[in-house]
């Protein structure tokens, strides 16, 4: 078996002294999409932020075998980790083009790929990102991660609050991205997970309680109900 691109071992994280995840151990394979699931508030976003050092954390984080848990956030990202945050966090006062230019870390950014995936952004390149719709802002956020040739993408709830048509566009963009880079995806939309993910990890109470193939998990209605408290409506669709 090939080495995982990301390995978490006994990772704990805290915000303002309050522990939000505890002893999370989890691996992300070097290909495809791995979904991190769980009910609201179980620590999915905190796990992603802990990986990047955006919150206080202890434990081990390895990127392609190299320990990165002692590094500051920018150094972790420079090692090839793209990040799409939960609430998009585009720079509202900057234009679309400036948002993308800021994100470009390498001499040859993948502008053509971004233009192909999000043609709308090309037309709106001079528009302030703060004036875009939620869906367009999500595209900017995704484009900032995809413009670099990363080794891993951390994508946090990319379809949250978006219209169904935009959800499809975002899912399509992630599917294209996943052909070349592994993705750790935090997502609530089971339809999107079924479409994209090959594996899942399920968090409950700040710990990983289940890992396995995505399709096996989604097909087990009792498991989905127990860990997520919802039925997989996408199965019937």
């Amino acid at each position, binding site marked *: 078996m090939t080495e995982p691109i990301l390995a978490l071992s006994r990772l704990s994280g805290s915000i303002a002294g309050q522990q939000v995840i505890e002893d999370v151990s989890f691996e992300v394979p070097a290909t495809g999409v791995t979904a991190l699931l769980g009910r609201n508030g179980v620590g999915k976003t905190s796990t992603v932020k802990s990986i990047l050092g955006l919150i206080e954390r202890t434990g081990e984080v390895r990127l392609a075998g190299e320990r990165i848990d002692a590094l500051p*956030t*920018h150094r972790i990202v420079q090692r090839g980790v793209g990040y799409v945050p939960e609430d998009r966090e585009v720079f509202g006062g900057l234009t679309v083009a400036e948002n993308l230019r800021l994100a470009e870390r390498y001499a040859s950014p993948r502008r053509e790929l971004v233009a192909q995936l999000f043609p709308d952004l090309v037309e709106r390149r001079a528009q302030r990102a703060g004036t875009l719709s939620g869906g367009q802002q999500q595209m900017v956020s995704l484009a*900032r991660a995809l413009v670099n040739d990363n080794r891993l993408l951390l994508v946090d709830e990319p379809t949250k609050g978006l219209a169904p048509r935009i959800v499809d566009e975002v899912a399509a963009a992630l599917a294209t991205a996943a052909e070349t880079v592994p993705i750790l995806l935090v997502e609530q939309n089971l339809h999107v997970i079924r479409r994209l993910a090959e594996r899942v990890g399920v968090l409950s109470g700040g710990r990983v309680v289940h890992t396995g193939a995505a399709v096996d998990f989604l097909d087990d209605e009792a498991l989905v109900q127990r860990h997520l408290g919802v039925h997989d409506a996408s199965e019937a669709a």
Partner: protein
Amino acid sequence: MSTVVLLLITGLGLGALYFLVASGLSLIYGLMGVLNFAHGAFLTISAFLGWEAGRRVSDGTWWGLAISALVGMAIGALVAALTEYFLIRRLYERHIEQALVTVGLSLASVALFEGIWGTDPIYTARPEWLTQTTEILGAKIPNDRFLLIACALVVLGGIVLFLHRTRYGLIIRAGVENRQMVSALGIDVRRSFTLVFAIGGAAAGLGGVLASVYYGYVSAHLGSVLLIFAFIVTVIGGLGSLTGAAVASVLVAVLQQFANFYLGGTGDLVVVVALAAVLLVRPRGLMGKVA
């Protein structure tokens, strides 16, 4: 009419001084969340060393004033960068300690300046044209006001160009909005902190030299006096907003001049009342972001 014109242009001149101090304060707070009470000290040491350099080269001439301005800006940038590197950098996100260190530095520096240059103001020589007046619409405007306004406009234009035309400017504008997200794009945002301190220090340094032209003297308390109004301007304009600082500098200084003339020397009081009104009605300031 002539009185109104005189007050207006004098207010603009004073506003230019406020802006030179407030621009740095605003950028530093906007990017780093640091309330820099030592900013006045940058201004004062720049004024003293600029004056020392200028008078040695050619006292009371344009050449001497240009040397003063260059030395003042260089000293302001250097002292500010050193302050950030050796003192502030260790205290990011520790706001109380930041305030204590910068207030301490401010108080200690005044004592140091008094020890070196004495407690009395030292009157400075200026180029002859700056001691004269120019008549506009019947008002005799002291010429130094035009110099102050022109310098502030150049500094404003320079900072705007830097922020909009350079990669560091882009990082600073993004960092003012969301510092953590800048780091999450793989950028070492702290590198730009020293640069912002240096830019703010250079503007304050120029402000120090020009304040000595405006007031006609240098003193150990020059920075302390201007810092109070610069803070008021920064809060009224909106913490972190350069445009807000520019607009508020003009509003505060013009208001101060008119109140001093028409309301019996109550300029300072009126400014404080304006500050209170802004804080009550629009706490984020004229152009600040919603917290």
